[in-house]
């Protein structure tokens, strides 16, 4: 755009010029018109065109910048005030768009934290719940929590129950006052003695009563049996008397015997009854004794009691049996006697009748067969017939009534049978009940015995455990006490030992202190002497070094105007020899550059002289840089050197700025410093040259460097030698 404008301007200028040159006469008015017109039209056209292009370019740039922010930033970077223009027209640049990574990451974190928060919040709730009465665990949150909860509630309730029990246990001992052991044993012993006494008494009682009751029962049974026998005899006799028709004598004898037997029987029965009563009384007494023994509740007496009861029962049973037998016999006898009574009655009746008929004939009518008359016989036969008829009638009546009689008799019999059955059943039940009771009691006694034995074993076990526990506790206590005693003993011992040790240590310390002091003084003396020797040695060495360095320094001055000095090798060798053991000096001596050793160095004056030539040449090739430009450039630099005027010497500033790195400036600085004798600064400045001037000055720089190095080393050495000498010399 600029070029276009320039071209346009040039073209316009040329045209103007041409217009001026073209013709003189037409130039006047032509100039006026043409210059005005042409220049006006063309100039206006050109100006308009240029304005248009400029405006178009600017507008296009702005619009594209609005669309593409990268382009906008590029333009802002490159063109200086474009950012202001863009700010005015488009507004502030859009902010940089950062990819939203963080919010996405934050969200999952939040969620997890929320879940964790809920978990945490639920956990204390759960704990509270578990602390209360054990509720059923909730399902929702996590599987691990459920087992934890399941585990948590069971421990608290057992703990609670245990606590309750513990409190109860705590209460109990408070209420019960523990009696002392002796009292307990005394009481127990007294109890045992009392028990023993009662037991003895009971047993003796039981035995006595048992014996007496047994005796009486036996007697009763015997009596009953005797009665039974008597009854049987009597019945037999009666039967005999009834049946037999014997002589009057035998009859009366029989009757008498019968009477006797009857008497005996009655006596025996009475006796039996009395004995029975006695036996019953004894049994009652025995029962009383047994119950009293049971009441005393002594275990040892139990088997005896049980045996007594059994005996009692047996005796009762026997008695009852016998009594039953007797009763049976009695009933039989009754029947027989009834029968005999009946028979007697009939006989008497017949006799009466007979007497009424034949009063003359007396008792024993059987022997009167010859004495009787026919009337008597007829009346007797008639009476006999009448009697037979009557008897037949009675028989028939009897037969008729037989059934009824039998029925009534059966009923009676049934009733009596029933009664007897009932009584028998009752007695049997009683007996059975008694037997069952006895068996039960026996079983109870057995079980009790077994239980007693078991309890005894358990108690024994508990006692054993108790003794074990006591033993352990005692052992532990013993150990503790022993440990305590030992501890106190060791402490005391240690105290004593430390005291003793301290005393001995103090003594030793004092002695060693004196010894050390003496030894130290001796050592000090020795060291002083040694140091003196060393110092003198050092002084000698330093002297030597100094001498050699001075020689080296002198050799530096042997340089000619343009020739270097003589080679410094010999002097350096001397220096090295004199400082053989000193590392610092050795390093310095070896740091001398080999060129200086072999060839020698140039003096400063010669370098100064050379510098001027270098300066001239550097000026001449100032424009040539590292790319080694064309000959034209060489020509230009020559021209520049010829034309450029700069002060020959200019004082160099403290700090070099980039503008000072111009060749001419550097050269003038270097010249100034050279004239002042500052070779080092000149070398530094010349080192800043670039391109061809640098190459030109390279040789000179090398030489300068060598000289500087050598001089530096030597100055250091001499300084060092001086220092060493100063250090080792002693004040007078």
């Amino acid at each position, binding site marked *: 755009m600029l070029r276009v404008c320039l071209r346009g301007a040039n073209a316009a200028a040329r045209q103007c010029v041409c217009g001026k040159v073209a013709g003189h006469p037409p130039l006047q008015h032509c100039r006026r018109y043409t210059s005005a017109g042409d220049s006006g039209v063309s100039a206006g056209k050109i100006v308009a065109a240029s304005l248009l292009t400029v405006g178009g370019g600017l507008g296009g740039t702005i619009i594209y910048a609005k669309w593409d922010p990268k382009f906008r930033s590029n333009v802002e970077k490159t063109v200086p005030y474009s950012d202001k223009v863009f700010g005015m027209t488009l507004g502030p640049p859009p902010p940089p768009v950062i990819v939203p990574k963080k919010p996405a990451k934050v969200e999952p974190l939040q969620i997890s934290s929320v879940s964790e928060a809920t978990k945490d919040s639920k956990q204390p709730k759960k704990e509270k719940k578990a602390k209360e009465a054990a509720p059923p665990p909730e399902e929702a949150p996590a599987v691990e929590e459920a087992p934890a909860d399941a585990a948590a509630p069971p421990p608290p309730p057992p703990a609670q129950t245990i606590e309750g029990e513990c409190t109860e246990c705590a209460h109990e001992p408070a209420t019960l006052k523990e009696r002392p052991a002796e009292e307990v044993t005394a009481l127990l012993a007294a109890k045992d003695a009392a028990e023993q006494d009662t037991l003895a008494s009971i047993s003796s009682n039981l035995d006595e009563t048992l014996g007496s009751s047994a005796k009486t029962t036996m007697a009763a049974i015997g009596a009953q049996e005797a009665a039974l026998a008597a009854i049987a005899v009597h019945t037999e006799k009666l039967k005999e008397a009834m049946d037999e028709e014997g002589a009057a004598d035998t009859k009366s004898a029989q009757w008498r015997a019968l009477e006797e037997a009857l008497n005996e029987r009655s006596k025996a029965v009475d006796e039996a009854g009395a004995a029975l009563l006695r036996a019953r009384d004894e049994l009652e007494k025995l029962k009383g004794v047994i119950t009293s023994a049971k009441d005393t509740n002594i275990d040892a007496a139990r088997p005896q009691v049980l045996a007594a009861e059994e005996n009692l029962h047996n005796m009762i049973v026997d008695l009852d049996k016998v009594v039953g037998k007797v009763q049976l016999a009695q009933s039989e006898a009754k029947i027989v006697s009834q029968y005999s009574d009946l028979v007697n009655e009939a006989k008497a009746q017949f006799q009466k009748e007979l007497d009424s008929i034949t009063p003359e004939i007396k008792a024993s009518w059987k022997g009167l067969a010859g004495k009787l008359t026919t009337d008597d016989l007829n009346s007797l036969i008639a009476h006999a017939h009448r009697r037979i008829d009557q008897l037949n009638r009675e028989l028939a009546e009897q037969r008729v009534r037989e059934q009824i009689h039998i029925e009534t008799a059966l009923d009676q019999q049934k009733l009596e049978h029933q009664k007897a059955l009932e009584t028998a059943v009752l007695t049997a039940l009683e007996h059975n009940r008694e037997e069952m009771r006895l068996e039960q009691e026996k079983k109870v006694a057995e079980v009790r015995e077994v239980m007693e034995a078991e309890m005894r074993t358990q108690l024994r076990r508990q006692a054993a455990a108790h003794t074990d526990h006591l033993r352990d506790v005692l052992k532990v206590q013993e150990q503790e006490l022993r440990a305590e005693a030992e501890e106190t003993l060791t402490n005391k011992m240690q105290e004593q030992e430390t005291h003793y040790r301290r005393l001995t240590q103090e003594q030793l310390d004092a002695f060693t202190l004196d010894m050390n002091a003496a030894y130290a003084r001796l050592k000090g003396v020795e060291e002083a002497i040694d140091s003196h020797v060393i110092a003198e040695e050092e002084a000698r060495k330093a002297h030597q070094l100094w001498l050699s360095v001075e020689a080296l320094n002198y050799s530096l001055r042997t340089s000619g105007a343009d020739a270097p000095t003589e080679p410094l090798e010999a002097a350096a060798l001397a220096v090295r020899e004199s400082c053989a053991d000193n590392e610092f000096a050795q390093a310095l001596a070896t740091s001398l550059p080999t060129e200086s050793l072999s060839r020698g160095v140039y003096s400063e004056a010669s370098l100064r002289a050379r510098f001027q030539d270098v300066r001239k040449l550097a000026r001449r090739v100032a424009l040539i840089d590292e790319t080694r430009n064309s000959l034209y450039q*060489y020509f230009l630099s020559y021209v520049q050197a010829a034309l450029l005027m700069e002060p020959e010497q200019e004082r160099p500033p403290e700090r070099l700025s980039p503008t000072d790195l111009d060749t001419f400036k550097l050269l003038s600085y270097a010249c100034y410093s050279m004239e002042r004798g500052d070779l080092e600064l000149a070398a530094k400045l010349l080192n800043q040259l670039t391109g061809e001037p640098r190459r030109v000055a390279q040789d000179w720089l090398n030489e300068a460097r060598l000289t500087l190095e050598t001089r530096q080393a030597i100055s250091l050495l001499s300084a060092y030698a001086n220092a060493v000498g100063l250090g080792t010399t002693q004040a007078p």
Partner: protein
Amino acid sequence: MDEEYGRKWDRCLADSAVKIGTGLGVGVILSVLLFKRRTWPVAFSAGTGLGMAYSNCQNDFRSPYLLHGRMVKDQ
């Protein structure tokens, strides 16, 4: 160092003199023989010579570390 510079210039000048002279001569000959005594061959070859000399000089200056050897003839 500085002497080398001077030496280079000497060489350059000598070379350019030789080349221009040679060019002139060749040009004259060519113009006389082939191009009917026109001036342009002379100018052309002189210019060629000058150009060659210029180029040589430039190269020499641009390669400062290139040593110039001399052929030692066996005798």
